[in-house]
C-alpha cells in the first residue's frame, strides 16, 4: 500500500524542485508531469509552453518550447511505451510526439468534432496493446483511441453529469483494460473499460476524505492505488480503486513547503516518491512513501 510520509497534512516534503523563472529548472505555472521510468527522469510542461526534462534529483537535463503558444499552452504530457514524449497541444487541437531530446517526430489532430479531431485535448494514455487514448473537453467531451501513429480507431464517452458521462476529463490513466479518468467538473473519478464500457464513478464533490473538488491529476501507483491531485482542494489523495475509499490525503492550501496552490498533477517514480506539480507556487514537491 502506498504510504506517503505520514498522513498528516503538515508533513514536509522530502525535497522541493524547480523555481520561478524561464531558465533551466525554472517554471512558470507548471501544469503537467510525466515519469520516464526507463530513464528515471521526469518531464514537466509549464504555462510558458516549455517542456523540460529533469533528472531524478530535479536537475535540468533538456528543454524545448512548443512551436506555437500564442493561442494557449498544453495542459498534459505523457511518456509513451516507445520512450517518446506525447504532448496534447490543448489549444492547437493536436497531439505532438517528441523524441526524448525534443525533436518533433510526428503530430496528428485538427480542430473539430469529427473522428480524429479535437476541441481541447487534455491528456494521453497508453494501453497494453499499444493504443493511444486521448481525453478532451470543450462542448464535446470524449475519449478517442488511436494507434501509435495517430490513426483513429474508436471513441467513447460523452459530456454530462449523469452516470456514464463526464465533464472535462483532465487526466486519464490505464491499468490493464481499465481506464480511469479525472472527471474534474463532476468532481469524481470515472472508471471505464478500454472497450468503452462504463463501470462506475468514484467520489463526489466535497472536501472530506474520498470527496473531490476539481480532480485534475490522476496517476496509478505500482500497488494499484489511484493518486488523485485536486485542483480545488489543494491536496493529493490516495484512493483505493476497489472500495473508492481514501487511503490518505496530503497537502493543504498555502505557500509554504508541504502546502499547495493550484496543484495540477502528481506522479510516482520507481523509488516510491510522489512528485506533485504545485502550479501556483511554481515548483514541484517531492514526497517519499514509506
Amino acid at each position, binding site marked *: 500500500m502506498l504510504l506517503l510520509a505520514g498522513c498528516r497534512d503538515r508533513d514536509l516534503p522530502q525535497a522541493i524542485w524547480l523555481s520561478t*523563472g*524561464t*531558465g*533551466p529548472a*525554472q517554471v*512558470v505555472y507548471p501544469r503537467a508531469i510525466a515519469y520516464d521510468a526507463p530513464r528515471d527522469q521526469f518531464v514537466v510542461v509549464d504555462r*510558458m509552453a516549455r517542456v523540460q526534462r529533469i533528472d531524478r534529483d530535479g536537475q535540468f537535463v533538456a528543454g524545448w*518550447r512548443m512551436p506555437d503558444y500564442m*493561442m*494557449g499552452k498544453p495542459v498534459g504530457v505523457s511518456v509513451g511505451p516507445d520512450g517518446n514524449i506525447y504532448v496534447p497541444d*490543448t*489549444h492547437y*487541437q493536436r497531439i505532438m510526439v517528441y523524441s526524448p531530446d525534443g525533436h518533433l517526430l510526428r503530430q496528428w489532430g485538427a*480542430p473539430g468534432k469529427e473522428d480524429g479531431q479535437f*476541441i*481541447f485535448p487534455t491528456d494521453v494514455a497508453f494501453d497494453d496493446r499499444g493504443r493511444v487514448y486521448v481525453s478532451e*473537453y*470543450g*462542448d464535446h467531451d470524449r475519449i478517442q483511441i488511436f494507434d501509435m501513429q495517430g490513426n483513429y480507431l474508436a471513441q467513447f464517452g460523452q459530456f454530462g*453529469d449523469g452516470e456514464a458521462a463526464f*465533464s*472535462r476529463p483532465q487526466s486519464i490513466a490505464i491499468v490493464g483494460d481499465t481506464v480511469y479518468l479525472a472527471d*474534474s*467538473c463532476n468532481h469524481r473519478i470515472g472508471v471505464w473499460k478500454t472497450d468503452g464500457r462504463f463501470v462506475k464513478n468514484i467520489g463526489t464533490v466535497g*472536501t472530506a476524505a474520498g470527496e473531490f*473538488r*476539481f480532480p*485534475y491529476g490522476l496517476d496509478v501507483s505500482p500497488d494499484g492505488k489511484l493518486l488523485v491531485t*485536486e*485542483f*480545488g*482542494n*489543494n491536496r493529493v489523495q490516495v484512493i483505493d480503486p476497489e472500495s473508492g475509499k481514501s487511503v490518505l490525503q496530503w497537502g493543504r*492550501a*498555502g505557500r509554504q513547503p508541504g502546502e499547495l*496552490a*493550484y496543484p495540477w498533477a502528481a506522479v510516482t517514480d520507481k523509488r516510491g516518491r510522489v512528485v506533485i506539480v504545485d502550479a*501556483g507556487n511554481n515548483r514541484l514537491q517531492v514526497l517519499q512513501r514509506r
Partner: protein
Amino acid sequence: MPISLEYMSWLQAVGLFALLATPVVLLGIRSLVGLGPVRRWVAVGTRLAVLLLMVLILAGARWQKINRTVEVMVLRDVSDSTLNVTSFPGDSLQKSIEDFLRSAADSKLKRPDDRIGVISFHSQSLIDAIPNTWLALDARPIRDPGNGTDLASAIQLGLATLGKDSMHRMVLMWDGNSNTGDIEQAVAAATSAGVPIDVMPLKYDVASEVLLDTFNAPTWKRENEPFTMQVILRSTNLGPVTGKLTVLHQGVPMDLDPETPGVQSGRIVTLQNGLNREPVRVPGLQSAGVHQFKASFEAPNVSATVAGAGGLPAGNVGGSPPQGDTLTQNNVGSAFTFVRGKGKVLYIDNVPNGAGQTLRSALIDEGINIEAGRTTVDQFPNDIVELQNYDAVILANVPRGSGGLSEDQQKMLASYVHDMGGGLVMVGGDESFGAGGWQGSRLEEVLPVSMDVPAQRQIPKGALVLVMHSCEMPNGNYWGEQCAIKATETLSSRDEVGVLSYAWQGPGGGGSQWDFPLQQKGDGSKVIAAIKKMQLGDMPSFDDMLNVAINGRDGNPGLKQSDARQKHIIVISDGDPQAPRQDLIDDCIKNKISITTITVFPHMGDPDGLPPTMKSMAQQTKGRFYGPINQNPGQLPQIFIKEATVVRRSLIHEEKEGIPLKLSDAGSELIKGLPSFDPIFGLVLTTRKPNPQIEVPLVAGKNNDPLLAYWQSGLGRTAVFTSDAHSRWLANWTGSAMYNKFWSQVVRSVARPPMSSDFEVNTVPIGGNKGRITVEALGKDNAFLNFLSINANVVSPNPNAPPMQVRLTQTGPGTYAGEFDAADPGNYVAVLNYRGAREGSGGMLLSGMVVNTSPELRDLKSNEAAIERIRAATGGRMLAPFDAANANFFAREGLRPSISPQPIWDRLLLVLLALILLDVAVRRIAWDWLATKNLAYRGAGWIRSFTAARNIESRQTLDALQRIKLEQMSKSTTATDASVGNRTAVASEPLPDRSRKFEAPAGVEGDITSVVGGATNKAIPSPPSPKQPPKGAPQPGDGMTGLLAAKKRAREQMENREGEKNG
C-alpha cells in the same frame, strides 16, 4: 571601517562613551582599591567594555559586508530611431543585440553568482529580464509602441533595479538620441552610486533621407480670405531628389497648380540638399471652423535621382551614397487654420426611430447653425481640434461606453467645455445620465447634476455580479481590475454589486469565491479596494461560478436572495471553463437574471470566433455576448460600463398621467419669456450638485427632481435636460411654439462666445519638444497694448494629460510669449484668456499647432558625443559593437565594491551578557592568580600540542629560551624545588613523536613510554610533606573560616604597609 552606525555618528558615539566611561574610571580608581591593582584595572576595563558594547548597540552598529558579485544591467534602445542602424551582424538589429547579449552572458565568461538583467527603452522603460544568473530573453513584457526616447528613465529604472548585494555595472546600447527626460540628472545619480556605464554605440548616419520638416499654416483667417502655407522639406541627399508633393484639405486633394487647367493634385518638386521651402496657395475658404491640411512627399515612387546619373532609380551608383528616402514615416505633416465665421453647433442624437430629428429641426428653424455632416454617435469627433469647429455640443440620449462615447471622447468633451470654453447640452432619454452609464465619468464632473440619487428616494435598485476570468489574456489581471472598477463606478450607491473569481483557497476549498460579496455598493471604496486585491484564478467550470452567483456561498447571498429589480451577471472569460448545467441556466431565466458574456482571447470557437458556451449563456438568459476580443483590450471597460447600466434602468422615472413641473427660478435666461410648462411623462433621475452657482430653473414632480439645470464649468457652460426632447416624454411640448423658443434659448445660453479677433496669435513648435505661443496685441488705433494679463490652457493630444497652464509674459511692446511642452506628436489646442487694464476688457483667443511625426524619426545621425559623455562621466568603457568575446561584462576592475550593512546587535548582545558576567565575577571572586596563570600555561600547552608537529623548530627555540629563563630564575633564588629541575630536564629533551603513539617499533623492550611518549621513566619526586596547621587555626575546607583568615592576613599586610609608609 568594517562597522557602521545607523542611529548616531561616530563622534556622537564616542562622546556618549566618554560621558559614560569617565565616572566609571574615576569611581573605579577610588572604590576598587581593595581589589588590588590588577583586578581593579581588569574590573574597570571590563566595565568599559560593557559600556562600549551598550553604546554600539544603541548606536545601531552594523557590520559592513563587502560583496564581490557583479550585477550587470543592460539598457537597450528599442526606439524607432534605431531603425536607421544598418550595421549589425544578424538578420535584424534587435536579434543581433540579443545574440550578442547571450554570448556576452555565457556562463564561461562569468562567475556562477554574477547576474545580468535587461531593460529596454524608448519613451517607456520596461524590464525585459530581471537580474538573474541566467539571461532570460524569451519572456519579455508586452510593450506599447513608443514615441520618443527617454534614456533618463531607463537609467533611473536600472539604478532602482540593481541589488544591494553586489557590485554594479550598466551596459548602454544606444544611438545617442534622446528627446525627453533629464539625462544629466540620471547620469549624476549613476555616478554618485558608483555605477559605471559601459557604452556600445548604435551608429548610423542616414545620407539619403527626405523628411517633411515643418508644415506652417496661419492660425486664423476670415472667410474667403486667401492665404499661403509653407511646406518645408529637408533632404540629406548629396544630389537633388525629385518627388511628388501632395496636400489634402479636409481629406480632399488640393489643386497645387491653379494656373494650369484642371485639378493638379500633386506637384513634382526637386529637393536640394538641406531645407527646401514649398509654398502652397490656399484660395479663400468659405466655411467657418477648423480647416485641416495634410501634406505628404512621396519619394520612393518617384525618380529619386543621382545628379548626373541620368535619372536612374535610387541606388548606390558608382560607390556614391544612395539617393532617395530611407524612412517614409517622416514624410507626412499636418496643419490647421481656424476660419472665422458663423458659429456651429454639433448635435449628436442616439434617439431611436429618428425621433431626435424633432429637436434638430426646431433648432434649425430658430436659426441655429447645426452641423449637417455629423449626426450619429459614431460620427462624434475623435480629435480635439475637430471639436473647435463648434460653439456648442448637444448630446441627446447618448450613453457612455460601448455604443456611446468612448472614454477618450468623453474626456475630450469635458476638456472642450472646461478648458476651452465650449458649450454642452445633455438631453435625457433611456440611455442617458445614470441610465447611460455616465456616473463616475469625467464628463459628469462638468455637468450641474450628479447621476446618483439620494437613498431616501427609495427607487428600485439593481444588482450586478461581475465574474472575472480574464487571467488568460495578456495583462489579464490588470484589465480585469479596470473593467470591474469601471462597472462599479457606473452603479449608484444603493445598487448591489458582487465580484466573483476562481480562488485557490477559501472556506470551502478552491472554487468560485466572492472577492466582494453581493451587497450595496455604498461609496464604492470597499468594493474597489477588494477589486484591487483580486487574484484571478484559472476557472475550471462556469457551473460553480453560476451556482455561487445565483445561490451565494458561505453565508453570502446570491442574486436569488436579492430584492433588486434588475439582476445581471457579466462574465469575462476566454471561454475555456466547462459549460454550466442547464438547471442553473433555467434558474437564471426563472429569476430574471440576465447574463452578458465577454470573450477575450479565446482559444477556439465557432466560425464567428466565440466559444459556444459564451454565446449560449447569453442567448438563453437574454443577455448580450461580446467578442472575441483578441486585441485592443482598452475597449473592455467600455463594454463593462454599458452592461452595468442594465441594472440602472430604475433611474428612469415615467408616469403615464404626467409629471407636473415647477419653475424654481423664473428669472433664468434659459426660460426667459416662457411663463409655464406642461407636464412631462418621464425623466432620468439625477441630483443637483451642492454648488450655489448652479441654476435649476425647472424641477419635476413632488420630489423636485432637476429637469433643467445650468452652470459655468471652468471656461465653458453646460446645461442638462433630464427628460427627452421628443414625443415620448415631452409630447406636451413638441409642436408648440414654446418648444422651439425653449431649446434655442438653452443652446444659445451655453454656446461659446465668438473668439476675439483683436490680436494676432501664433502657436508654433520650437526645438526641444516645446511649443511657443506668441500674441501681438494692437489696439484699434494700431497702438501696442501693454500690460495685458494673458493665460493659456493648452490641451495636448494625450487625452489623459491635464491641460497645461501657460502664463504669457510680455517680451516687447504689445508682444507676449509663453512656452509649453510638446513632446507628443499630434494636435495642440491653446485657449487664451486675456484681461486688460480697463474694466470689462478681455476675451478669449483660440490657437493651436501640430507636432508632426515622432521626434524619433527626425534623428538622422547617431549622437556619439552624447554617448561618450555618459561613458566619461561614469567611468565606463567603450565596447566594440557586437564583440561579445571582449565585452567582458563581468570584469571586476573599476567597480566599486558593494557594501551591505548587516545588523549585529544580536551578537553584540550575547557578548555584552558575557562581559556583564565577567564584570561581576572580577569584582566578586577572589582570583587565585597563580592558579589562573597555571591554567593559562596549561591552555597554551594544550594549544601548542596541536601545532608542535608543524612548528617543531620554533618549539625548540622556545624551549631553549624558556630553559635559559628558568636557569636565570634558579640562579637568582635559593629555592631548590625539585619540580623546577624536573621541568627543566623534561623540557631539554626532544618531544615524543605523537604520531607513533600506538606503533611500537619491533624489538623495543622496557618502558613503553619511551616509544609512545607521555610520561618518562625518570624518578617521580616525592610529594612535599603537608604543613601542619597551627593548633586552633581553621581547617581546610572550612570556607567561612578560610575567608576570615584571608581577611585577617590582608588587614595585617595593609597595616604593615601603612606602618612602613609612616615609619
